């Protein structure tokens, strides 16, 4: 075995060109597999960083009649579920929160969450320092404790060993740090995807949640998600039945708050499914793509090994004559191919590591959980198995062929051997056909995704993202205690920032389009009654300041925008978008009509519709615009807001001027998450863009490998036929005749591969349907284009070796003995 290995190593060194091409082909195939396997391992296989995550569920309510499928719960509802459900060991509630940390060079806004006492017990993660929440922390006036992340402990507190018990000021309030969570802890995860939740960043701070007495009375104000741990042995069916019983009781006990029928309810979604589900189709498609790349690499290497087997027939014949059995020769060839494959595998792993680094650099900020992707021992073992398997696959056929030489023919003087055997040529040609077919499947898939992405880029978002800067602001409740103080801040800030030279418009919104956040609210329409069959409408709801539409360049279709005079003392006003106008006033003018939100009928405050604006694709470029209504932030204040600034040129240089303007109003007020609106839009399609990059890259690798394969086989066939071609030329064949003969032969193979590839591509691209935007999975233009591109490249690959022969002296060709 050692001798065989030594011989294999010597052979590879002796043929550096062969070795290099083979190692590169394997490295590309295995590198792509390593990278995607790492993604699959981290995002699909590796459990969430909680104890027994399979038993953790996320519970969200639905009001089906109002098309609300997964919305948070209110405080009294949570108390109902917690009190009446027996299917859970622990249940907790949480909502995202922001914390303005005072001190240091400048105030800093840190993302976090507010959670009830059992939150960490549900997740089953212990702190590395201090403690988690206790029930006493979750009572009014005692919630002034914080748990921080290991990352924040490191960055902001220099890993201070005395951190537990430290006092800090956040949101204008004093807090005591009581715990530090481990570095691996992440909660909430961006992919929780709860409507209205801001999960754009990783959480570094957790505060206990103490419901106020007022909060515990209001059933319609829903801002909390429930996370719970199922009791051991509790089935999904049994759990859902219990939840249905609780919601039925709510409907009976609070008829003003719920419909009578079962269109209201709550569902327990397995956390694994919520977090991993959306990623699954894309990852499986990528996995299939890299598998195809590996298959192409294998086909390529098999053709190369077959060509080499032909040149080694004499050696194999001698070995058989000296006593080598068929298995022994097969072992020899397999050892060589596996050795080669392992070399390529090592290069592939390095390539995969580099690719993952690149991937993380590109996508960590925008693709959830990408930062967790790494190359662990599971992936390394899988890669090792793939490398060995690859070596066996591409070595097997050449090994079997080599193990059965015709000794009489091979060993006799001047024997030509069997390299010209028709059987082997057929095999080589079949491999070329397979390579072309597989490459076409990948090219067609990548082509469809690219076309889809281009379509998406040309979609009108409803606003103009150029030269717009956005940043988030959070007004602490202790400093801005009432609506008036918040309104004063927004008015003053808007005026000061709008007057900065270079800034054209500035405005605030509580929800920025395409930022991953959202909010909705139900409302009543004056003169229209609601009941179980016709419930109150519930549509997308935003709070904005004057200047927002101008800053976003959202077109005002009718009426007027908000003004500073639309304050808390003025009559309530609202602006709706065209979609909402069309849905509720399809045949009449909506201007002047009145709606009311969020109050009981007795206290209804009617807001007059003063304007209609254009539709905005809020959820993303690939989502149709939804009905939206806007109210002035000064009439419906909100302590979280996003500042939107439009400048006459590139906006990045204005950040310090904006920060100064805000600090002149409130020196303790930090700004966070500063991004251009173009970046926000780009981030909203980041996972899609990443998938296109990856699939495009794999398709390019597939195309290169297929081209190399075709080039290699055609070179081999041409060399085999050099003597024959020389005779033909000596007998009067013109160069174009020879070209037609050889390239025509290649064209037939390419055509066969293309036809088979198109059939497979038609089947494969159906899987992409959900990822395509306004492009059919069988888009003929794309299929036609990729077929032409592949065909052209394949023909060039076959032309090059042929042209070399026809340029040569026919006498040299005649002298050549294949």
């Amino acid at each position: 075995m050692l001798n065989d290995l030594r011989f294999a190593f010597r052979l590879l060194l002796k043929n550096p060109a062969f070795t290099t091409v083979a190692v590169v082909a394997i490295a590309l195939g295995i590198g792509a597999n390593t990278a995607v396997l790492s993604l699959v391992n981290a995002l699909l296989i590796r459990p969430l960083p909680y104890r027994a995550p399979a038993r953790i569920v996320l519970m969200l309510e639905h009001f089906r009649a109002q098309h609300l499928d997964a919305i948070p719960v209110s405080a009294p509802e949570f108390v109902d579920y917690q009190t009446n459900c027996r299917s859970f060991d622990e249940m907790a509630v949480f909502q995202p929160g922001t914390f303005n940390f005072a001190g240091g060079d400048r105030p800093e806004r840190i993302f976090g969450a507010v959670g009830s006492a059992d939150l960490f017990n549900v997740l089953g993660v212990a702190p590395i320092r201090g403690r988690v929440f206790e029930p006493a922390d979750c009572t009014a006036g005692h919630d002034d404790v914080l748990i921080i992340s290991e990352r924040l402990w490191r960055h902001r507190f220099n890993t201070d060993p005395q951190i537990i018990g430290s006092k800090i000021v956040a949101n204008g309030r004093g807090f005591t740090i009581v715990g530090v969570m481990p570095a691996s802890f992440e909660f909430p995860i961006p992919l929780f995807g709860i409507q209205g939740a801001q999960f754009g960043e990783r959480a570094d701070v957790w505060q206990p949640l103490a419901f106020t007495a007022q909060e515990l009375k209001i059933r319609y104000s829903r801002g909390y998600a429930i996370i719970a741990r199922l009791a051991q042995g509790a089935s999904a069916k049994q759990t859902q039945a219990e939840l249905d019983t609780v919601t039925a009781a709510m409907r009976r006990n609070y008829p003003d708050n719920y419909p009578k029928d079962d269109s209201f309810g709550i569902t327990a979604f397995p956390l694994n499914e919520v977090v991993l589900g959306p990623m699954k189709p894309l990852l499986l498609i990528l996995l299939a793509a890299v598998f195809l790349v590996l298959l192409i690499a294998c086909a390529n290497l098999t053709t190369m090994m077959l060509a080499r087997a032909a040149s080694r027939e004499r050696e194999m014949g001698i070995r058989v004559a000296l006593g080598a059995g068929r298995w022994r020769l097969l072992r020899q060839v397999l050892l060589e191919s596996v050795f080669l494959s392992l070399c390529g595998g090592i290069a592939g792993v390095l390539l995969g590591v580099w690719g993952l680094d690149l991937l993380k650099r590109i996508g960590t900020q925008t693709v959830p959980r990408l930062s967790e992707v790494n190359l662990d021992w599971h992936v390394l073992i899988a890669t090792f198995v793939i490398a060995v398997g690859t070596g066996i696959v591409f070595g097997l056929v050449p090994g079997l062929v080599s193990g059965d030489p015709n000794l009489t023919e091979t060993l006799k003087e001047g024997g030509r051997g069997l390299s010209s055997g028709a059987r082997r040529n057929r095999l080589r040609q079949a491999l070329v056909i397979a390579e072309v077919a597989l490459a076409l499947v990948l090219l067609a898939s990548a082509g469809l995704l690219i076309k889809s992405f281009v379509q998406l880029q040309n979609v009108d978002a409803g606003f103009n993202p150029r030269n717009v800067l956005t940043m988030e602001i959070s007004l602490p409740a202790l400093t801005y205690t009432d609506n008036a103080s918040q309104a004063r801040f927004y008015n003053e800030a808007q005026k000061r920032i709008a007057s900065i030279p270079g800034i054209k418009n500035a405005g605030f919104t509580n929800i920025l389009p395409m930022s991953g956040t959202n909010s909705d609210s139900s409302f009543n329409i004056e003169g229209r009654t609601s009941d179980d069959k016709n419930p109150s409408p519930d549509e997308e709801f935003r709070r904005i300041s004057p200047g927002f539409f101008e800053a976003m360049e959202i077109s005002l279709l009718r009426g007027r925008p908000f003004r500073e005079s639309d304050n808390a003392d003025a009559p309530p006003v609202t602006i709706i978008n065209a979609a909402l106008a069309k849905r509720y006033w399809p045949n009449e003018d909506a201007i002047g009509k009145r709606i009311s939100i969020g109050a009981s009928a007795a206290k209804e405050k009617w807001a007059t519709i003063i304007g209609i604006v254009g539709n905005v694709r809020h959820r993303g470029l690939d989502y149709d615009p939804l009905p939206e209504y806007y109210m002035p932030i000064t009439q419906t204040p909100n302590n979280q807001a996003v500042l939107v600034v439009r400048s006459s040129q590139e906006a990045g240089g204005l950040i310090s001027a904006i920060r100064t303007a805000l600090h002149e109003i409130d020196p303790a007020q930090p700004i966070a998450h500063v991004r251009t609106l173009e970046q926000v839009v780009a981030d909203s399609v980041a996972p899609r863009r990443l998938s296109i990059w990856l699939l495009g890259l794999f398709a390019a690798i597939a195309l290169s490998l297929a081209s190399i394969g075709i080039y290699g086989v055609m070179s081999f066939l041409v060399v085999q036929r050099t003597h024959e071609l020389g005779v033909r030329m000596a007998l009067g064949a013109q160069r174009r005749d020879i070209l037609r003969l050889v390239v025509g032969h290649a064209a037939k193979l390419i055509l066969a591969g293309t036809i088979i590839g198109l059939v497979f591509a038609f089947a494969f691209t159906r899987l992409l349907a959900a990822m395509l935007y306004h492009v059919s999975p069988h888009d003929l233009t794309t299929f036609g284009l990729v077929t032409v591109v592949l065909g052209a490249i394949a023909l060039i690959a076959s032309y090059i070796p042929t042209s070399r022969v026809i340029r040569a002296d026919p006498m040299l060709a005649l002298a050549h003995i294949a």
Partner: protein
Amino acid sequence: MIRLHNIERSYPLGRGQMFYVLRDIDLDIAAGDFVSVMGPSGAGKSTLLHILGMHDHGWTGEYFFDETAVHHLKSKERATLRNAQVGFVFQQYHLLDDLTVYENLDIPLSYRHYSKSERAALVADALDRFQIVGKKDLYPRQLSGGQQQLVGVARAIIASPKVLLADEPTGNLHSSQGEEIMELFRKLNEEGMTIVQVTHSEKNASYGKRIVQLRDGWIV
């Protein structure tokens, strides 16, 4: 030791016609014999040698090797018999280019499941016996034709076969090198080795104890 009866080797020509390379060969070779097979090109000499060496399986007739009916053996059994009993010397030496002299001598032993120490001892013995110790780390391309054939013969007999088959062993050598190889064959034969050689050379044939003439596939 070797008995061939009614051996025929043919290739199909299409339309049910056959081309016969060997016809009705009857041949007995006793242990310790030294047979020279002669004949013009295309007479079937090499084919006969490859049948004797059990490289060729497409023949008909009866072939007994030490009373073992080769014609009844399966392919794998023939390979086992060949490995145990037959050594081969080729006109073109057929040394493996990428192995050193030492490794070329070692390789037939490695195919015969000798232990590492046994192989080392046998190779050292062969190197010494053929006086090529100084060349053990050289590659075939670094040797003269005569030296290569010397290694070829050493390799053929290293596993102690009973029969040595040689296909034009001096065909690629100049006369003095050829004589050396033939003297070596004579010596091996005197030591008891049965040898069958194919040759065009009357002089080389004279080193043998008898000559078998082939013409158009027939023994004449």
